[in-house]
């Protein structure tokens, strides 16, 4: 396969990814303010975060200035993302498999970025020969990513299939996701094994992609790897794998959201309280607004 079809396929895949991901994130952001539902430990609690304490530990907390750490939540998240802290702490038998898969993905993303960086450097006029070490590193990282990712994906497929703790909860879609990931990594290994200077081929492909070169081409094994990777990129935002973005909301918008009511939120809440609550149970004040229901006619409250 050669020619501009590569640009069309690649940029279309990225476009679909971005549109769906942005749409889903936007849907989350636009949801109404909810009741507080925080959960300790909250890392932005300066010093108290050592043991999970919160500002509510202060006598007359409303008179005490809140001391927030901006670094601690980032460190917490980095440990969660790169060390899989939660799984290590609470589900250690799963940890090696999870780490392998996630490191495969991280290294894959890093090598894509390195290939882009290589392309931009070449486009800036730097001779390719000056980037040999850069290319060696890219190749090594790519191979490491393919190997760890393939091991992680295959072992997770087996674990989900063979372990009765996982099998009932695993849907065909989940096998598809893991299968697609495994195919992406295995095709990468095959491409590496058939192309003598691997990073030159992938970096060259990236340069042709960015320069919209009509002569762009890829060897069959690399072409298969790229197509599978593009399929994965298109599929990803439709699935729960988007958790690498939405995790921000599960943590910041819910678990660590201890924001007191301010003027803006007060207005939002008043608007929500004025909306009708349509629940049908006898005590639920059918048709009345939340505010009316809660302010409470005694007869409503007494209905059972």
């Amino acid at each position: 396969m050669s020619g501009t079809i590569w640009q069309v396929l690649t940029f279309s895949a990225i476009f679909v990814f971005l549109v769906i991901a942005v749409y889903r994130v936007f849907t989350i952001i636009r949801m109404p303010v909810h009741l507080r539902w925080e959960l300790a430990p909250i890392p932005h609690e300066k010093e108290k975060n050592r043991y999970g304490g919160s500002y509510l530990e202060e006598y007359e907390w409303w008179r005490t200035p809140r001391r927030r750490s901006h670094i601690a939540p980032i460190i917490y998240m980095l440990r969660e993302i790169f060390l899989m802290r939660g799984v290590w702490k609470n589900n250690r038998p799963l940890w090696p498999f999870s780490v392998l898969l996630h490191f495969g993905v991280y290294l894959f993303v890093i090598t894509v970025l390195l290939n882009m960086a290589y392309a931009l450097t070449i486009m800036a006029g730097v001779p390719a020969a000056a980037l040999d070490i850069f290319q060696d590193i890219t190749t090594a990282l790519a191979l490491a990513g393919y190997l760890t990712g393939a091991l992680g994906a295959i072992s997770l497929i087996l674990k989900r299939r063979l372990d009765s703790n996982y099998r009932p909860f695993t849907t065909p879609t989940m096998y598809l996701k893991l299968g697609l990931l495994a195919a992406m990594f295995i095709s990468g290994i095959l491409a590496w094994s058939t192309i003598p200077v691997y990073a030159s081929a992938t970096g060259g492909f990236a340069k042709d992609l960015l320069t919209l070169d009509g002569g762009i081409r890829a060897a069959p094994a690399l072409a298969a790897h790229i197509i599978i990777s593009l399929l994965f990129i298109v599929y990803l935002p439709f699935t729960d794998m988007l958790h690498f973005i939405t995790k921000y909301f599960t943590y910041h918008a819910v678990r660590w959201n201890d924001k007191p009511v301010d003027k803006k939120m007060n207005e939002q809440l008043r608007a929500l309280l004025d909306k009708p609550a349509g629940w049908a149970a006898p005590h639920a004040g059918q048709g009345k607004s939340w505010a009316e229901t809660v302010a409470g006619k005694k007869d409503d409250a007494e209905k059972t």
Partner: protein
Amino acid sequence: MPKRLNLTDISKTGEGQLTEPDVNELMPLPPPYDKFKEPGFKILTEDQRERLVSNLDGIVALALPKPKSKEEEKKYIEQFVSGLKKLLSREDNWTFLQPLLLSLDYCARCQTCSEACHIYLASGRNDLYRPTFRSEIFRRLVNRYARHKGSRFGGNDIELNWETVSRLYELAYRCNLCRRCAQACPMSIDNALITREIRKLFSQELGWAPRELHEKGTALQLEVGSPTGLRPDVVRDNVQFLDEEFSESTGIKITTPWDRKGADILVIHSAGDILSFPESVIAFTILCNAAGLSWTLSSEAPGYEGVNYGLFYDDIQLARIATRHAQIAQKLGVNKIVMGECGHEHKALMTVADRLLTGDLNIPRESAMTFLEEIVFSGKIKFDPAKNNFSVTLHDPCNIVRNLGIVEPQRRILRYLCPEFREMTPHGVDNYCCGGGGGLSVMNNVNFTDWKVLIAGRMKFKQVLEAFADRPGPEVKKYICAPCLNCKLQFREILEHYGAKEKSGIIVGGLAELIVNAMVDIKKPFIKWES
């Protein structure tokens, strides 16, 4: 009965139950309770099986009557679907829409939460009690029947029939809502929240809720003032009687103030403490008076009852009660409300209701833990820690500690006043629930108490025994400090079941009692070991 289940088992037709907890498979307890001859779970009578839905695990918490006809079953199924849709609606469920959808859509099914759940572990790893079992069934029902994503490829294969609806209702009350699973989840998926949303659907759409939580709970509280049935005049009489009784036993004059307009502080106890743990209420009075505080109780219903069972199953009832509490404080003109020793009162009024009490109703609300710490370290009262010459361990109520992050104030008090204080493992925000959380401590229908004690409370009892393992015999006095009424009620049932007071010398009480027990001015021991 199998303990390995498939998710689709929930919709198995017929009256057969899915599983049955087996006492021989439960998590072992430390000596001497490893030899305890467990009487097991009460078997339902023929009459109960005839009348009540009992198709889950042979345990009946809710006493749901069987429907009389297929039409009635169909009506409930339709109502359930209607409720599913309302849970996804911005108007009907703005209160928890975002947390719910995030938890429904981004679970990786990694089962990390199961390893954190005391109920699942204590049951001997019965699949029915996994946090994910209930949530995954609900997720698939939402996808298929509310979002119309019917693909079996996506796993949306659960049939919605009467059996599914009735089993899911009962299953929603096999969780303490302690949120240890959410804390363990790498994605921060909250299975306890999903469980509460299921309960809410049943309550707000079908009008189904445990009698103890709704009819004899929030509805009674809004009607007469308290789920205990205590009316304002009776509650005042009771506390006045306690004032007199404890004045006599302690040798100091005790007077609890009522309805003092313009007082600085409104204290809202759980009225259940007045009946079940009266020394807790009186200890507060002694401490507030000794510290010279301007404070009051309210006798306006429900201002003398801090519980808010709405937190466990119903947003509307939750909001009603929290609003009434704030209105009463506003009427008295107090500067702050202080929670009694009640975990879910803390969570309901201090944080969850924070976004319901808009404008003038947003009166500052303080924890009993920080309030007592301030009194203890104010220097206004003299203490002799040697008076607390017994072993003490601290139970962390989930709603105060894991949910609100109030961890250290109570510990600073205990380290100061209790020389033999020792921690459980794990403790603090990593604690295990007592097994009575999520409203379960007040639910005692049919044979549910057996389940609560043998399974839900098992991990906590094990922790308590391990904390006192160096001095196991009954000759050494041991005190579980549980600053929460519901936790104390659950502990009381566990200790009674195992005879732990007689065998191990263990009793349970609150924090304020320990503080008063160490007061120099209280000549006789305030904590009674004989009663």
